[in-house]
């Protein structure tokens, strides 16, 4: 097998500790993904990406860096990929979806903090994530208090730039975000030595829109009665979208969609038509966090939509491609990104509308509201979302969890009871 140890060593990784992660992944992936029956053949590409998650893609980043290119790490769907690409850099979404990193995160952060934030910091300080190690710059954003303050800690270990995301949606907030995008543009130009021209930005906008369109096409395939792909497979595709080569990702995802559309024509599905259809809403599920999807689908239901940052919030709404001036394009970017309905905004009525609209669009029988422990904004917002769903006659259950195995038995029981109620 390919040996990436030299590459990892050059990135300053803790090889011994990293080996524990390498050891655990095949088993987990086998138990969650490879046990599925009747998977689309197109999933082989994503099997390949996961198998090479710390190998081939890291080698590609390394080659890019050797040719003088830069790598920029991001943590949130608000940081515009378009600018990173237009500056000739490669953007990677840094995941933080593993329990493996919690212990190290807790060395420098309080324990009563969201697992995603602890894992992000743990991944960096343990030297076990080659993506973190490949980054020339990290880009944070002020979405939640946990992350905002954790970036100060991360800053002790790696160069970080933080974008100031407004928390309301007034005209002046849109303008403020536009200014932030301008400033980030200058930061990236200085980092890469490349000027972000109108031509380059326009190309990057089109590229990112094509990626969004491919993901939307994938989601559309789940709206049919006989769902041609499992929820956990779609979650994996979405997670991979954050760090894969965009052109290759678009090509392979469209190929998968061709296969799914063919399956729909032939009536091939992955679940029984009687399987309850579940929509998930709530906090992000970073790779390799497959816990909720696995528990839900192992209980006989099928997940048909995710209103999360690793779901519709990532790809819904395209950036206006008709703008030709820098001012026009930056404004178009600000408008698109400010339209994401994250719980960090107040008020956030848009999310209630999204959840109800999506549940109807995807024919969900019920909604599972997943909240990562200690995520206050999404936790508090449950009240309004629950009310909106109840008014629409859609059942919902609230589940708070982390990345550990401690609560899986208990969660399974709650999920089974919820599914039973939907019958």
């Amino acid at each position, binding site marked *: 097998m390919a040996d*990436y140890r030299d590459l990892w060593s050059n990135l300053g990784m803790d090889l011994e500790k990293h080996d524990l992660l390498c050891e655990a992944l095949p088993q987990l*992936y086998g138990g969650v993904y490879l046990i599925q029956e009747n998977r689309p053949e197109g999933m082989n590409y994503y099997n390949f990406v996961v198998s090479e998650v710390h190998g081939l893609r890291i080698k590609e980043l390394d080659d890019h860096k050797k040719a003088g290119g830069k790598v920029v790490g991001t943590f949130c769907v608000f940081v515009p990929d378009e600018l990173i690409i237009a500056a000739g850099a490669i953007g990677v979404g840094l995941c933080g979806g593993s329990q493996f990193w919690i212990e190290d995160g807790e060395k420098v952060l309080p324990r009563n903090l969201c697992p995603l934030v602890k894992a992000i910091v743990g991944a960096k300080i343990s030297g076990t994530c080659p993506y973190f190690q490949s980054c020339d710059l990290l880009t944070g954003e002020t979405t939640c208090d946990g992350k905002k303050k954790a970036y100060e800690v991360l800053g002790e270990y790696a160069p970080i730039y933080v974008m100031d995301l407004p928390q309301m949606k007034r005209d002046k907030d849109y303008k403020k975000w536009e200014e932030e995008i301008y400033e980030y543009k200058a930061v990236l130009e200085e980092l890469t030595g490349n000027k972000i021209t109108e031509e380059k930005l326009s190309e990057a906008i089109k590229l990112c829109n094509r990626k969004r369109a491919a993901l939307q096409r994938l989601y559309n395939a789940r709206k049919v009665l006989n769902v041609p792909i499992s929820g956990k497979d779609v979650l994996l595709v979405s997670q991979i979208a954050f760090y894969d080569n965009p052109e290759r990702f678009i090509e392979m995802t469209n190929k998968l969609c061709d296969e799914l559309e063919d399956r729909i024509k032939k009536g091939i599905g992955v679940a029984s038509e009687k399987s309850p259809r579940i929509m998930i809403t709530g906090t992000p599920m970073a790779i390799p966090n497959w816990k909720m999807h696995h528990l839900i689908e192992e209980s006989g239901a099928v997940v048909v939509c995710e209103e999360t940052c690793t779901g519709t919030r990532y790809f819904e709404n395209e950036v206006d491609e008709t703008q030709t001036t820098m001012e026009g394009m930056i404004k178009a970017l600000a408008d698109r990104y400010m339209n994401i309905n994250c719980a960090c905004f107040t008020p956030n009525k848009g999310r209630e509308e999204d959840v109800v609209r999506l549940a109807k669009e995807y024919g969900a029988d019920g909604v599972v509201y997943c909240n990562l422990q200690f995520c206050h904004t999404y936790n508090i917002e449950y009240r309004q979302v629950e009310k909106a769903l109840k008014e629409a006659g859609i059942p919902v259950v609230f589940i708070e969890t982390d990345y550990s195995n401690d609560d899986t038995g208990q969660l399974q029981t709650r999920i089974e009871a919820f599914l039973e109620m939907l019958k």
Partner: protein
Amino acid sequence: MEGESFYILFPNVTEGLKLEKLLKKEAIKYTIVPTPRELSKSCGICIMYEFRDESLIKRIVEEHGIRTEGFKSLTKRKAAVKFI
């Protein structure tokens, strides 16, 4: 996963992808999977196949001069998923 599974290991990704292309062309069922730790300590891809296709795949490998690190099998007991 229960029972015996069959895998082809490769010295690098390129060789694995070369064989994948040929298997696809010949319509032979296969799955790309992370290499089980029991078979190799290095992580990366390997190809899981069905035993009934083994001689056919071996012929393809030979005809096209694809370098492998062997055809292996593994018997796994079903274990509860442990999230990491």
